[in-house]
């Protein structure tokens, strides 16, 4: 079941593994992305830490780690071609996968309806 954060990240949780990306709404606001910076595999983040960066020509934004855990895998494709994020933000253009160390945090995430209500 896909979850969301108010900071425009989406999260798919399967067991203790989470896949994270940014929402179509966020991408629409940013415009054409020109740069994506991803965390290093093995890095550990606490919920709310800035883990990645996205930049368009006119805006730069941090991507926050929605949950606490360790980075397992990053999506090299989007680093090489940031346009892929514009093309399919909520599908193939995921940012990173992580192993969660505090599953209870999942409860704090929004479901789709709540997120859509926030962004109007």
């Amino acid at each position: 079941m896909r979850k969301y954060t108010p900071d425009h990240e989406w999260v798919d949780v399967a067991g203790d593994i989470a896949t994270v990306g940014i929402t179509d709404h966020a991408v629409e606001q940013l415009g054409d992305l020109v740069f994506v910076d991803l965390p290093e595999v093995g890095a550990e983040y606490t919920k709310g830490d800035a883990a990645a960066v996205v930049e368009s020509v006119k805006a730069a934004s941090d991507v926050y780690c929605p949950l606490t855990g360790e980075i397992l895998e990053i999506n090299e494709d989007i680093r090489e071609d940031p346009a892929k994020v514009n093309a399919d933000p909520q599908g193939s253009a995921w940012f990173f996968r992580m192993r969660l160390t505090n599953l209870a945090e999942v409860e704090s995430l929004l479901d789709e309806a709540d997120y859509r209500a926030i962004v109007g």
Partner: protein
Amino acid sequence: MSYAEVGYQPYDFANRRHIGPSPKEMAEMVAAIGVADLDALIDRIIPADIRQERPLAWGRALSEQGVLERLRSVAAKNRVLTSLIGQGYHGTVTPPVIQRNIFENPAWYTAYTPYQPEISQGRLEALLNYQTMMADLTGLDIANASLLDEGTAAAEAMTLCRRSSRSKAGAFFVDHHCHPQTIAVIRTRAEPLGLTVTVGDPFTDLDPATVFGALFQYPGTYGDVHDFTGVIAALHGAGALACVAADPLALTLLKPPGEMGADVAIGSTQRFGIPMGYGGPHAAYMAVRTALTRSMPGRLVGVSVDARGNRAYRLSLQTREQHIRREKATSNICTAQALLAVMASMYGVFHGPDGLRAIAERIHRKTVRLVKGLEKLGFSVTPQAFFDTVTVDCGPRRDAILAAAERNGVNLRPVGETRIGIAFDERTRRIHTEAIWRAFGGGMSDDDLAHDYRLPADLLRTSAYMTHPVFHMNRAEAEMTRYMRRLADRDLALDRAMIPLGSCTMKLNATAEMMALSWPEFADLHPFAPAAQAAGYAEIITDLEAKLCQVTGYAAFSMQPNSGAQGEYAGLLTIRAFHAARGEGHRTVCLIPTSAHGTNPASAQMAGMKVVVVGVTATGDIDVDDFRRKAEAHAADLAACMITYPSTHGVFETTVREICAITHEFGGQVYIDGANMNAMVGLVRPGDIGGDVSHLNLHKTFAIPHGGGGPGMGPIGVKAHLAPFLPGDPPAGEAAVSSARYGSASILLISWAYCLMMGGEGLTQATKVAILNANYIARRLKAAYPTLYASPAGDVAHECILDTRGLKERSGVTVDDIAKRLVDCGFHAPTMSWPVPGTLMVEPTESEPKAELDRFIVAMLGIAGEARAIADGILDAENNPLKRAPHTVEDLVGEWDRPYSREAACYPAGAFRVDKYWSPVNRIDNVYGDRNLVCTCPPVESYADAAE
């Protein structure tokens, strides 16, 4: 019959030359606004309780001729000796063709920063040449479009290392042979950031495990030339980064830093044809490895394509900068030294790689002969291998020799107690060598000694540099003149049209104010020359400080900051030192409203402060309740607030005194950003309304030209209690924000001449007319473009924010479309999407006559009409003159398949017919440029491609 005099004052500079609207035009404008007269308008706009009590006054205003005479007499008080002091500043020959066609040419010096790339292709190309030249010379991958000076470039290199280094160590190592002023600037920058600076010998004192980065000087300040390859490898082994401060002229002969493995190179390009000017302005450079590109501070020119797919230049990677990243930016830098970088690049074009190398060889050979002579006289000279700088041990005779040299017309550098440093340069001739020998007690002639080379044999440069064709043009002056003219013609500067950029104050830079910059008495003074030789400068600086104190209500000034942002940083450091001296060093919170310029939070971060953001109300004013709440919550650790007045929204807030009082109540100091001082001079003094520190953008309010993106000058004024904490003397090792005590001292002449010719009354009138011009535009455009923030009476300060968001909703026309269409009309766009997204901020300044204001108004109304036609379906939503702007000659001569006419395309309302400005490129693709980053001159083959 009696004779009636004409009653006209031809030499009244303020009212006839500087202020644009004539008295008759002003009467018409006042009527259009609907007030009785100018003073009535001002009384309505500026709250009565903040008006200054006494008018500005410093005697009668001088005429242009009068100010030039005055400048001549002060110039005569400077004594220009031949300064062979070195230490980062060298004699150089500005090629006359560059002096007249760039340095003294308003097409170059009155341009703005190239944020609107379509109308900036000329200087963008020149800056790309600069980047290419510096990347080549340093042997690194990518160079920026210049930094403020060598000292600040070194400090920026340190913070770059901190951001990018893998090492977690807390110290930065600095070569003890770095210039003393560089070390002072680095130490000052490091302290509030909690970084440790270790100064020592790189070959004996550097433990790579303890540092995150290191800086070496090459050649060293005393002349030593070392190979740092080994220590750099050791640094990399420990995860640290290596920076080299390198003399670019030496790099034509010596192995470049990139080939030693350095990650970063910085330095000054002053000796590439830029006069010393008693400290500046000069362009510093920074070059890095590709991997560090995004960590590099400063402007970066890149290559992209326009809507036709043709090559076009633009500023790349702006997301690194403070106007987007605020306190997370790579630096608070928002200025380069564009004009000086352009001159340095042209020096490179003028001489080419062979010419530069020949100049370096001649300097070296002359230095060898000097050394041979000194050795013959029995002196011990170090080092054995050198480029242009040596140090001589003189024992107890040192001071006598220095004095003798000075009597012979040569300044040398005292080093330690017994030594003398000598640095030769492009202007050194045999008479200087012989004068030095005489001072050391010898009588031989330059012919007595054969020349040879004492360069370090294992450090000779073998790699090519500046291979691009632009550095291999035919050397005829005809070719050079035309190249510079072609580039200038691509750009739109103040010499062709109003530049109505909000918050940038693009006022007249009068010719009389500029002339003295070229005089040798001002241009050829070394910043570290004995003070007695700079009595003229001292007189000007002291007098300008007194005038600025009178204008601001402050007690003391420091001329050291080289930009507005550097002024903010210097002002906050002053506040920080004040708190620390009172045992309140724990005060680190800085309140900043969301409406602040991005440099404010970036500067606060650099000064070691924690930014707490304060909201603004729906009317754009600072939310006083929120301000009080946050000040109170931080009563124990409040250091300062940073506010801009009048606000960045272009309004004189009535609550400013209250904001200042709240800050003081909770132990903080008030920083009033002087960016909008052009709305206050002569009417309101920041010191009177509660400010403790302000910087003044002399390049806005006090007539220094913008130079196409620098130089700038951001001196700070302070109340008396802060005066002891102002920046000190950089080469003496005191706290310093830039390399030279008076920053870019030579351009202070401009502001001084401006003050003298305007007089107190003229400056006050200028402020009033600046406000008049803005209100006139706001009124005339109100129906088409509502003014976003205004007083209840509908008034603005010296600028106005035009709300274009409704227009976008109705027609899909964006601020970008309006900006690019204004190019077709022959205008530079107003400030876009700042401080409010989707709006345009217009600041006409007092210098624009009514006819130019009307031309702008006509152009803007024409654009509104086109937008309406789109909304009404008369014009196509995409294929219309706004979306396809700017239009080029290529568009007109090609196939015309557009649903609007060629006439409509190229002659919109407001455009001149005969004197039409033609954009050299179509709209530039920003996304392509940032996705495909190229920041050096593209190879020749790609020029051929473009031509096909």
